[in-house]
C-alpha cells in the first residue's frame, strides 16, 4: 500500500490555493493528474514520487546517481586492469 511510483511532470495546472495545485504526470507513457499539495516546489520536468494521487517528494537527481558512482568505484577497485566497467 505504501507503493509510490516515479513519474515526470509534463505540465502544472495552477490554482490560487496551493492545496489544490495539480500536475499532469507521465509514467512511462501513461498520463495521470496528480496533486502537488505536498510538493509546492515541483516544476515541469521534475520527477516526483506519486502515491495514491499525491506527489510525496521530488526525486533528487544527484542523490539518485550516487549509488551508480559508488558501484563504478567498487568495480574499479576490483578490476584495475579492465580499464573501466563494460
Amino acid at each position, binding site marked *: *500500500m*505504501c507503493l509510490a511510483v516515479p513519474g515526470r511532470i509534463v505540465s502544472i495546472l495552477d490554482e490560487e490555493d496551493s492545496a489544490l495545485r495539480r500536475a499532469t504526470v507521465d509514467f*512511462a507513457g501513461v498520463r495521470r493528474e496528480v496533486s502537488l499539495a505536498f510538493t509546492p516546489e515541483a516544476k515541469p520536468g521534475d520527477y516526483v514520487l506519486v*502515491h495514491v*494521487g*499525491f506527489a510525496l517528494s521530488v526525486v533528487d537527481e544527484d542523490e539518485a546517481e550516487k549509488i551508480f558512482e559508488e558501484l563504478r568505484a567498487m568495480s574499479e577497485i576490483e578490476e584495475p586492469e579492465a580499464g573501466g566497467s563494460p
Partner: protein
Amino acid sequence: MRYVDEYRDAQAAARLAEAIRSRVNRPWTVMEICGGQTHTILKSGLEELLPPEITLVHGPGCPVCVTPVELIDAAVEVASRPGVIFCSFGDMLRVPGSVRSLLEAKARGADVRVVYSPLDAVKLARANPAREVVFFAVGFETTAPANAMAVWQAARQGIGNFSVLVAHVLVPPAIEAILSAPDCRVQGFLAPGHVCTVVGYREYETLAARYRVPIVVTGFEPLDILEGLLMVVSRLEEGRAGVGNQYRRSVQREGNRAAQQIVAEVFELSDRRWRGIGLIPMSGLKLREPYRSFDALARFAAGPAPAEESRECIAGLVLQGLKKPPECPAFAVRCTPESPLGAPMVSSEGACAAYYLYGRREVRG
C-alpha cells in the same frame, strides 16, 4: 521507467551482494519492515544472492494485514447498508472478515467500489449527493496525508455525505513492540522509505539510540534493498547503532513538512489494535474533534464488535517476524489467495502472498 529500471540491474546487484559477502563475519538477523520490500526480496530472489550468515525476517508493514478483523466486519456492515457507496483501495476487498469479505458483500449487492485515490471518493460524494459515500482510510504514514487531505477538502467544500472509516497505523510503535518483546531476535532494520519520505527519520534515531540497533531507511527496488543491507551489515559488524539513509533520492531527515501539517490538522494519535498482534498503545490515528462528523463508525453507529479469527492462521507470528509463511501448516494447502484464512495471503504486501506468488514453499537455510 526512469528511477526504476536502473535499480533492477542484475550486474550491479551481484556487485552489491559481493560487497555484503566481504563485509560479513558473523550471523545477523535483519528485518525489513515494509511488505513492499518483502515482495521485492521474494520476487527478485535477493536471498539467493546473500551470504548464509544473513537471515531476513519480514515485518508488520502491511496495513491491509494488520487492520483488525472487527474493522473489516464494520466495513462490511456499513457497505451493506442501502444508499451507501463504499470506496476502498483494491487490496482490502478480499481480506477475510469474521463472516465475509468486502468482495463477498459486493457479490451480495453492496455498492463497493475500488478507488485509486481518496480524492476519487470525495469526487463520488460530490457527484452523488443523495448517497452516503464512505472511504476505508487504511494505511501507514505514507497514506495518511492523502487521506487527511480528502477529509480536509470535504470539510472545506461542505460535502456532508462523505465519511471515512479510519484504520491508520504507525510504524515506530510497531518497531518498539518488536524490539521490546522478550523473544526478539532482530538485530537491525530496513526502515520503510516511503513512510520516511513523509515523516523523516528523527523518531527512528530515538529508537536506534534507545535499543542500540542500526536502522537504515531503504527504498524498494532490488539495488536499494541490497545497498540498505550493506549499510546495516556494515554497522552491525562495526558495532554501530544509529540511523542511515539509503533512500536519499526521496527521504530527508525532516520529512515532508506540508504532508505532516495536514496529518496533524486532521488526525491525532490513538491506541490501535493490530490484527494478529494485539493492542499497541498510541500506534494509530483517529480524527480530531473538528473532523469527527466525518467518522463513518459514529455516523452509522457501526461496530466494532468482538470478532472471531481463524484458529489455524498464524498471521500474527508472521507479521512479527517470529515465523515464516511456509512454517504454517495451512500455507498453500488450506490457505491460498483464492481461499485465504488470513490477510497476509491476499494483500499485495502480505508475506504469505509473496511466498505463494513467487513459488517459495520452504524456509531458506
